[in-house]
């Protein structure tokens, strides 16, 4: 086996020297497609975090009218707690709302609030959902509820008594879905193109060595012995492409991503080393799989042994 391995490496190297243009073409297409795979995987992970952070912020706030009877508020709260899509319900009193408001917005000019004649902020029920995607369903249920009508701040216009990040969530989901579909389509196309390139590179390698192959068959070289150098060549090409892609992605990861998250502090743009490693492993595995598949394809078509 030791002799054989040396032989195969030598053969692959020779073949690469002989048609380096085609090999380079194969390597570059693999590199590009894996780079795209990596970018879409990585940005998918980042987007996932962004979506999650927004999801955390998505809660439904039901504004209560001043002086709503406590038992009806309790009933409303109980009704919400009974809803299986709801995770938690918290009551915020008028005073708490004002404190929050002060803390959030009026740090610099507390006098604005001090000068208010009363407390204009309503009490509210803050509802967190188990799955933010159910927002609109829960909102509909709330609006249809009699308890809600009894306690709502403005029963004449239910929409104004409710506040929720419905649109943000829906837009984010749409955006991520589109990005996902587009990147899958691109990656699939590039994967096909790289397979074609590898297929072609191997075909030319087979053609360049047709005399050797004919003699190998004649003297009884086994099929795997004839095939292995080509499989190895395809695998090496894709491995080089994968390593280049990982190199480029490392640059993005170590230099560009920190700058990006500095620029956009409002978005949680960070990726753990574990995630980055996972992406690298996926790239190497997909790359090698594509290389092997391309080489096998070429051999099935051009190297019948």
């Amino acid at each position, binding site marked *: 086996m030791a*002799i*054989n391995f040396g032989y195969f490496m030598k053969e692959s190297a020779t073949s690469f020297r002989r048609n380096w243009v085609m090999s380079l073409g194969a390597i570059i297409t693999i590199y590009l497609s894996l780079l795209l795979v990596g970018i879409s995987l990585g940005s998918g992970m980042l987007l996932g975090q962004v979506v999650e952070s927004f999801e955390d912020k998505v809660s439904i706030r039901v504004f209560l009218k001043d002086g709503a009877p406590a038992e009806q508020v309790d009933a409303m709260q109980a009704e919400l707690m009974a809803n299986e899509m709801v995770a938690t319900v918290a009551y915020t009193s008028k005073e708490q709302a004002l404190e929050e408001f002060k803390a959030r917005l009026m740090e610099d000019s507390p006098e604005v609030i001090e000068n208010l004649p009363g407390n204009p902020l309503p009490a509210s029920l803050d509802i967190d959902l188990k799955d933010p995607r159910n927002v609109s369903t829960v909102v509909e249920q709330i609006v249809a509820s009699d308890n809600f009508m009894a306690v709502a701040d403005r029963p004449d216009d239910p929409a104004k008594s409710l506040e929720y990040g419905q649109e943000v969530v829906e837009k984010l989901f749409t955006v991520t879905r589109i990005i996902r579909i587009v990147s899958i389509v691109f990656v699939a196309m590039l994967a096909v193109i790289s397979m074609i390139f590898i297929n072609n590179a191997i075909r030319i390698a087979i053609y360049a060595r047709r005399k*050797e192959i004919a*003699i190998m068959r*004649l*003297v*009884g070289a*086994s099929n795997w*012995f004839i095939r292995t150098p080509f499989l190895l060549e395809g695998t090496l090409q894709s491995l080089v492409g994968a390593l280049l892609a990982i190199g480029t992605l490392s640059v993005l990861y170590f230099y560009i991503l920190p700058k990006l998250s500095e620029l956009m502090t409002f978005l949680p743009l960070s990726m753990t080393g574990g995630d980055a490693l996972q992406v690298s492993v996926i790239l190497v595995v997909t790359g090698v799989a594509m290389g092997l598949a391309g080489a096998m394809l070429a051999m099935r078509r051009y190297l019948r042994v």
Partner: protein
Amino acid sequence: MISMRNVSKIYVPNKPPALDDCNVEIEQGEFVFLVGHSGSGKSTFIRLLLRELLPTRGQIVVAGQDLTKMKPWKVPYLRRNIGCVFQDFKLLPNKTTYENIAFALEVIGRSKHVIRTQVPEVLRLVGLEEKMESYPDELSGGEQQRVSIARAFVNRPPLLLADEPTGNLDPATSLGIMSLLNRINKTGTTVLVATHDREMVDSMRKRVIALEGGKVIRDQDRGVYGYGD
């Protein structure tokens, strides 16, 4: 060594078969000429023995193995037992004499030690030990054919097939090649030579199998080329 029973090979349906119901038995250690015009089926005969082709009908047994029932992955192992020589030598132009022969051993996984001892030995047998480092285009046709025979024989196969080995060579050189094949035959290797070299066949007085239109029309010990033309 070789046994063909009712073998037919049809390449294109409804066209005359390349081989038509051939029955041939060749014992171990025999030297046999296979003669016939171009298109008489000689090459098909050889390719069937190498299992490059499967017969349309009939049974072929080579070295005790039924080729019609042989699993494809076993074919390389069959070919290791069959040396093969062709009219066009089939040498690799970018390899020296030594490397060309070593290549045949390398690709069937022989060790470096075996290669280093067997290659010079077989080159001595064919009388080319001086030309070990020459490339094929530095050799004459006869020398190239000797290299090709050395490559076919380096693995000491029990059967040597030669398809028109002297087709590209002048009569004097051909004689040398034939006597080399004869010498190989004396070591116990069965030799089958497909040829239309009349003088050669007539002078050697070996067993002659004649093909015409894909049929065996004559099988004669110590025969001559025959055909009235």
